């Protein structure tokens, strides 16, 4: 288990050898990939796990009474067990494979929500949320007449816990919030907020899309009811992801999509459902992606998520110190302390729009994200329609950040030209 690993410094330069993208030449340089919060690079172990299924034991799962079919099923269900262990779930039946965090939240809104949420019921969200954790609840509210409430943030992007307490006093049905803000890097106090919600009688959904890649997530310690994440942000393939939920909840929920695999017995006009988690996996699953995700969490577990967290905290501290020193006038968003944030640093330059910054950095083979990062309401709150964001993963180095700082200086020179 990750929590048992002794803390030993992670060597990103050594790990980079596992990521073939760093072998590619970008105008005489490697890519300074600083957009890991959007999607992570993939290690060879993941690429080969996907290849193995595609090349050596391609078969549909749960049905084939032949060698490759049994291998595919074992690999697919084995990946579920790996993910369960990685999250410290009580059992693998609590892991539902989905395409991405977005689908997981939609699944909960459409099944648990449809059955449990009535007109006038309150759902508490936050101003920090990614659109993935907003729109499904807006759609549910439209269908049911539920009311959405929002925990505001302070100027460093922390959730206002007093306001949260006041919202809990209105007895909401559900609190859904992100464990780590993808736009600011803020780490929210998941355990405390979950306990408070439970004390108020609300269920809790945690959007762990930015938490799972960066630290050890222990769903039992969190104590929440639903936890979601995307595989493609944790070194896994696109198309992989998981919903974790307590078994009793899953069992009580109606199905999401209908089709093969999720059924037990089918008649022309009625049907009964399979056991969980398969009840929620209609049709041929993305077998290759799930197997790749299993390889990804194995890779991360071998590194130790505490080491990943330490590494990223170090990079964040380095960036928070380096950028204001090297880049005059840069504005940083989010908590000032690296201890309060994951490996995400968001900023604007006074002279150049984030899009121009990203375009100019690209010519130096530096990849950052510019825009609203799927958090328009948060950007509204920040008073900036767009920001620039650098985000890290295990393969990120201080050299990447040095290149970023130098790149930003050169952007400033372009914009200062003939001014």
């Amino acid at each position, binding site marked *: 288990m990750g929590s048992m690993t002794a803390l030993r410094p992670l060597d990103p330069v050594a790990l980079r050898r596992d990521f073939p993208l760093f072998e590619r030449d970008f105008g005489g340089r490697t890519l300074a990939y600083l957009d890991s919060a959007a999607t992570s690079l993939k290690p060879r172990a993941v690429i080969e796990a996907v290849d193995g299924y595609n090349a050596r034991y391609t078969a549909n799962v749960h049905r084939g009474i032949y060698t490759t079919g049994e291998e595919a099923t074992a690999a697919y269900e084995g990946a579920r067990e790996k993910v369960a262990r990685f999250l410290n779930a009580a059992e693998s039946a609590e892991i539902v494979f989905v395409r991405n965090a977005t689908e997981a939240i939609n699944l909960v809104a459409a099944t648990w929500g449809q059955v449990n949420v009535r007109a006038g019921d309150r759902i508490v969200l936050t101003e920090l949320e990614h659109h993935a954790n907003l729109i499904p609840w807006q759609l549910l509210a439209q269908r049911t007449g539920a009311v959405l409430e929002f925990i505001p943030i302070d100027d460093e992007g922390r959730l206002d816990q007093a306001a949260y307490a006041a919202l809990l006093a209105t007895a909401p049905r559900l609190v859904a919030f992100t464990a780590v803000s993808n736009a600011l890097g803020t780490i929210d106090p998941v355990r405390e907020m979950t306990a408070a919600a439970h004390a108020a009688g609300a269920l809790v959904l945690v959007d762990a899309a930015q938490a799972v890649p960066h630290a050890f997530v222990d769903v039992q310690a969190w104590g929440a009811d639903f936890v979601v994440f995307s595989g493609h942000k944790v070194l896994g393939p696109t198309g992989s992801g998981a919903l974790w939920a307590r078994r009793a909840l899953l069992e009580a929920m109606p199905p999401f999509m209908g089709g093969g695999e999720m059924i037990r017995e089918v008649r022309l006009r009625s049907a009964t459902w399979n056991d969980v988690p398969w009840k929620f996996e209609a049709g041929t699953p993305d077998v290759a992606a799930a197997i790749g995700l299993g390889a990804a969490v194995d890779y991360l577990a071998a590194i130790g998520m505490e080491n990943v967290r330490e590494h990223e905290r170090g990079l964040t501290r380095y960036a928070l110190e380096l950028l204001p020193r090297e880049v005059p006038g840069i504005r940083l968003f989010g908590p000032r302390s690296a201890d309060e944030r994951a490996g995400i640093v968001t900023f604007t330059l006074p002279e150049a729009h*984030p*899009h121009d910054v990203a*375009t100019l950095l690209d010519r130096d083979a530096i990849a950052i994200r510019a825009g609203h990062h799927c958090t328009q309401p948060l950007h509204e709150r920040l008073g900036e329609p767009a920001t620039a964001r650098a985000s890290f993963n295990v393969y990120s180095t201080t050299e990447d950040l040095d290149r970023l700082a130098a790149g930003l200086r050169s952007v400033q020179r372009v914009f200062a*030209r003939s001014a």
Partner: protein
Amino acid sequence: MDDLYRDEILEHYRRPHNFGTLESPDASVEGSNPLCGDRITLMLAVGEDGRVEDVAFTGRGCAISQASASMLTDEIRGRSLAEVEELTNQVVLDLLGIEISPARLKCALLSIDTVKKAAAQVRGAGDAAGA
């Protein structure tokens, strides 16, 4: 290496032409690019002869979007509405004179999309009045 952003573009970005509002425009259209947060409001005044008499814009966004609005508004002054509506995207790209990557195309074309909508609005109003 800095020809990604020619001096002329930066010049238009810093000191945009036709920046402001019109007193009594024949059309006023807001265009936006939610993914980027680029935004412009474009106003058009059209003369008896059906030509663009005056044009102004306000906006906020990246250099590409704002410079293209600045250059394009220069370009359409004096043109007939029909001409404006027939402008191709290539016109804007030529005005910018730099290579625009696919991801930035929306920034570059925000101005022309908005200008054409404004021209169509004037024409639509005219047709409606004439009908």
